[in-house]
């Protein structure tokens, strides 16, 4: 056919090469990265419509090795090593969801999500509303986020507020291995699209992981109970918040540390209950203060719990700057001392 210009053919991608996978059957000590890997494996075993898409997620297992062995165990039809294009990773996931699939997209680094931003905000988030419930978007978008790893620009960001501001999305952030496993399974099983933020600098921290799903991903959990100050955090900063509670206890201040887990919707029932008890609130996140989640939570709690507050709530966050060079990130990131400084402020000690 003269008018049909035919290009060269493309080679096929490799498929199954490993024996059938076995799921996590008993409590084990796993890193956060391995816990996500186990959660993905279980989700793929549970539902043949779960497919993974992302850059380098096949033979390499992702740049953080979170998808290790999944290509060999499930084959190239379910573990799709994609060309390097984030908008297409999300956009093709939309099409797969249209056909009843449950795509799990890996965005390689937080700062690389923006080429896919339009598909997430304009398409993924809106389809269910647009079609009055006819078309569901059970898409999970995995995003390693946050700093503290001495990385180059675009590799340390905390873009969660862009997504908590977007109606139609659920946003969660995990802080430990058990939640990493349980919440990736819950996210994939959700009929709503979920942004799943992974605490990049804690990928290699180990913890006990039981095969059970545990608390709903919508629930905030009290990491350590206290009576004087409510300290909210999520992701990598939860462990710093816990350290702050231990340090403050030495000074006689009792901090209740809450791991938010769900950033949209926020479990306000849990936060309100804690603030009614303590009367003081500190929110800490790595993302910039302006327009961030801390401001939103403090506004809501002020509306709902004003008469319970003993002092003005405080944010301890990254500054309103682009993520700085690695040699400056220790100044930018909230750390133990800055969180304790925030605690001192709500306690009226400064």
């Amino acid at each position, binding site marked *: 056919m003269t008018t049909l210009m035919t290009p060269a053919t493309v080679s096929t991608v490799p498929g199954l090469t490993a024996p059938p996978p076995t799921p996590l059957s008993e409590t084990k000590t796993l890193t956060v990265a391995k816990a996500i890997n186990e959660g993905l494996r279980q989700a793929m075993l549970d539902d043949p419509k779960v497919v993974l898409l992302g850059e380098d997620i096949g033979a390499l297992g992702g740049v953080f090795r979170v998808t290790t062995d999944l290509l060999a165990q499930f084959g190239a039809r379910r573990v799709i090593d994609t*060309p390097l294009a984030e*908008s297409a990773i999300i956009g093709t996931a939309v099409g797969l969801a249209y056909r009843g699939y449950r795509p799990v997209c890996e965005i390689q680094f937080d700062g690389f999500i923006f080429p896919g931003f339009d598909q997430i905000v304009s398409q993924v988030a809106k389809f*269910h509303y647009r*079609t009055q419930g006819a*078309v569901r978007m059970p898409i999970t978008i995995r995003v390693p986020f946050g700093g503290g790893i001495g990385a180059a620009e675009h590799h340390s960001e905390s873009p969660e507020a862009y997504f908590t501001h977007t109606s*139609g999305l659920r946003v969660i952030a995990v802080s430990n291995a058990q939640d990493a496993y349980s919440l990736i399974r819950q996210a994939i099983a959700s009929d709503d699209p979920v942004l799943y933020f992974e605490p990049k600098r804690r990928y290699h921290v180990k913890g006990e992981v039981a095969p059970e799903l545990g608390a709903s991903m919508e629930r905030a959990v009290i990491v350590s109970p206290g009576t004087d100050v409510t300290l909210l955090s999520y992701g990598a900063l939860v462990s710093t918040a816990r350290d702050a509670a231990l340090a403050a206890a030495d000074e006689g201040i009792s901090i209740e540390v809450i791991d938010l887990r769900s950033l949209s919707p926020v479990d306000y029932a849990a936060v309100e209950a804690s603030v009614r008890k303590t009367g003081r609130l500190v929110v800490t996140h790595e993302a910039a203060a302006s327009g961030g989640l801390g401001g939103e939570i403090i506004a809501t709690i002020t509306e709902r719990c004003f008469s319970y507050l003993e002092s003005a709530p405080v944010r301890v966050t990254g500054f309103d700057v682009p993520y700085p060079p690695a040699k400056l990130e220790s100044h930018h990131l909230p750390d133990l001392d800055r969180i304790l400084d925030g605690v001192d402020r709500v306690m009226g000690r400064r």
Partner: protein
Amino acid sequence: MIDSSPQPVQLLSLDGERMPRPDFDPWVADLDGPALLALYRDMVVVRRIDTEATALQRQGELGLWPPLLGQEAAQVGSARALRDDDFVFPSYRENAVAYCRGVEVTDIVKVWRGNAQSGWDPYTVNVATPAIIIGAQTLHATGWALGAVRDEVDSVAITYFGDGATSQGDVHEAMVFAASFQAPVVFFCQNNHWAISEPVGVQAHRNIADRAPGFGIPSLRIDGNDVLAVMAATRIALDRARTGGGPTFIEAVTYRMGPHTTADDPTRYRDPAELAEWKTRDPLLRLHRLLTRLGEITPEVEAATQAQADAAAAELRAGCIGMPDPEPLSVFDHVYATPNATLERQRTDYAGYLTSFGSSDQPGEGR
């Protein structure tokens, strides 16, 4: 501009004469007189619907309308080549495609009246909701096609977009993905020469069809005002996709005879002589001439066709004007598939606010 591509494939001369074309002819050999007449009826009806919708906008019944005037052959010819199980991912101008797929005429204007963000359930007609973000739907089509391969069915995705969309990254990314995975998807570009006020030369320094082979996707450049060429090309592309041949790109060269939307004013940027020239290539006129040659056009046929078109227009008008406004609290519906406490609280608060005006007040009309 270098015109490096072949001239658009034409099976029908401007005079309505059937032009032989050995590589395309077999694909439309089955189109006898009645089949051609059915295509003509479709084109007359969709033009009438389009005209009525424009009038409804002018009368304040629609907020906006994107006319398809001049693109009837491109849309009807391609849509009628599809199987029911194929899936369409359109832009917002493919109202003739929606009509051919069985979307109710009233549902076509629902979005433009502001009653909904989607006029129909995509799964009932296998037509996605029209994409307003330019080019975004090409990725959805590609993803759907990847799903079809995984489901081991031979259904095909077809995505419609314009010449303007070919500048969007999403369209390029869709072609990269479709080629890499040999996805059964047809990229159907209606080059209607204008992206609002930007002529196609702003989007493309060479013919748009030339781009696809660079991605590894075969392309066809056809006369988009020739319904036979459109149907043949679409069938060729669908057959390739169905039989594992992967994606095909079709550039249907046509012309937007009207404005971009009813909010646009082409007299500010377009030479009237250009429009006059394209009127001689009117897709309906050409098919009418062929049907006349074939003896299919009689006064009775003309009258019946016009009556069918007028009935569709009347149905559209009545359905549009009679469309009830959505309930105020439905603003909260379907944001999520699963319950959301934050949103439920807003719904409850707003419901309380509305009822605070008392039962005699109409909710949502303010104080």
